[in-house]
């Protein structure tokens, strides 16, 4: 269950272009978070909290790692916080990735840019369950690539960059055909990528993690809804998601 907690910054390191890895200490959240959940961070001078995915958890060290890209005033503020700072956080928030793979099944992980972080915690948890993991990670350019080795430790890993400056050139969807038959896929990334993937993988069992601008982050304000059908059905990304079965939501 989500709580309002203080998390102390233990480490902070640039990990790719405009991208920062931050290790936060908190007993409750590190002991309850599951892959795919997020933190909702209160940042000084900002009216709305910022959602950032949990990208790794160390229950023993009682730490949670996040990775974020500096794209606006909130992430800039967060990046400016020194080690030792305490951050007011709601978390762990939302529902994560369902983790019921059959042993020896093959799982495809498809990440795009700053959608990659939550998939790392997922991949680690999946690995514990003896499955075969293939990761396809897409980035804009060489400077924005991160966590290649970490994913490679867990299974075959293909890096794709839009401009071909690293790994294969193109989009993640260009290489999906190269991946042999899979039992399930998990994906997180920009909306156009998810649209392309869900179209290409239609019929396959899969889960996607979505983003939307949030008000409350707890399910009370209806800011973050996504339609589930054409008849007014909907889910809230902050509370019912951010992870959904690929067939369950309409990506418009």
């Amino acid at each position: 269950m989500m709580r309002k907690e203080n998390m102390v910054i233990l480490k902070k390191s640039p990990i790719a272009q405009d991208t920062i890895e931050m290790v936060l200490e908190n007993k409750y959240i590190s002991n309850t978070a599951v892959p795919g959940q997020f933190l909702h961070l209160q940042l000084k001078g900002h009216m709305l909290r910022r959602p950032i995915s949990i990208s790794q958890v160390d229950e023993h060290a009682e730490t949670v790692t996040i990775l974020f890209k500096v794209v606006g005033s909130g992430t800039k503020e967060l990046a400016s916080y020194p080690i030792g700072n305490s951050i007011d956080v709601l978390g762990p928030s939302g529902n994560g990735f369902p983790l019921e793979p059959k042993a020896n099944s093959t799982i495809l992980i498809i990440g795009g840019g700053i959608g990659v972080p939550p998939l790392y915690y997922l991949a680690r948890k999946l690995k514990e369950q003896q499955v075969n993991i293939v990761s396809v990670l897409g980035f804009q350019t060489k400077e924005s690539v991160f966590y290649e080795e970490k994913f490679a430790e867990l299974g075959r890993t293909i890096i794709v960059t839009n401009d071909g400056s690293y790994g294969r050139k193109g989009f993640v969807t260009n290489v999906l055909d190269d991946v042999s038959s899979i039992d399930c896929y998990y994906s997180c990334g920009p909306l156009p990528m998810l649209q392309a993937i869900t179209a290409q993988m239609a019929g396959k069992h899969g889960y996607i993690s979505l983003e939307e601008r949030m008000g409350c982050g707890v399910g009370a304000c209806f800011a973050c809804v996504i339609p589930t059908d054409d008849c007014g059905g909907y889910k809230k990304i902050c509370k019912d998601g951010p992870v959904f079965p690929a067939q369950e939501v309409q990506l418009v």
Partner: protein
Amino acid sequence: MSLAIELPGLSLKNPIMPASGCFGFGREYSQFYDLNKLGAIVMKAATMEPRFGNPTPRVAETAAGMLNAIGLQNPGVSSIIENEVPFLASFSTPIIANIAGSTLEEYVEVAKAFNEAGDVTALELNISCPNVKEGGIQFGTDPKMAAKVTERVKKASNLPVYVKLSPNVSDIGTMAKAVELAGADGLSMINTLTGMQMHLSAKRPLLANKTGGLSGPAIKPVAIRMIYEVKKQVNIPIIGMGGVVNAEDALEFLLAGASAVAVGTANFQNPYVCIEIIEQLPKTLAAYGFNSVNDAIGKGICS
């Protein structure tokens, strides 16, 4: 220190309540604290039929505020009565139903439904939602239309009616007097100011609905001014809101003439904000020389 306050049809143990639309139907925030502690609970707006609302993005952050264009998403009054009211009725806190409509008839129907259902303590007539366009009828800016909808709703139900005024008007006093004359038991003010944010990269308004309602501390000075102005012109109590974040803000509203205070956007920053204000309020009232909430109401109005 007495925090209790009596309003027409509403006995509040304290003057603090969440503002409509910022607290859903209470379930989410009930994870954080006991809803019995609240002065009242104001539900999200109800319409006759279920509404999906506007496309996303529906919110944007602004300086000391936010824009929202939820578009009155709600499951419809019957579903609310069936699925939401019973949960809230399990607390000893008065329930205020916020009702909206695209037509006069819709307001009346929704009011009737709540009236018949029981458990709801009062109605808040949302004539000011800036995010509905159907019918093109401006209940919120035309005093005659506002009076008419008030009168019709009063007739249709036995519940006390608080009319929620829009700040997007040239003369808030005229609006307030019109609905008072039409039988309103109280006023709620202010709703959001209509605003817009441009998305520079997309070269279009950020909100899918283009415009949205501005709330948060940014609008507090407008809220205080309007309450002050209206309080001098009417004899019905005012539930004040707009940018309240702490107990000092709440006292500012009381001094300006509000008899109770609703907290909206601040819940998103701090889910505990309502009960923190309730806890702080006795100290804050005492610090400025007041013995009760009643004692402070309208005390900042000078001739």
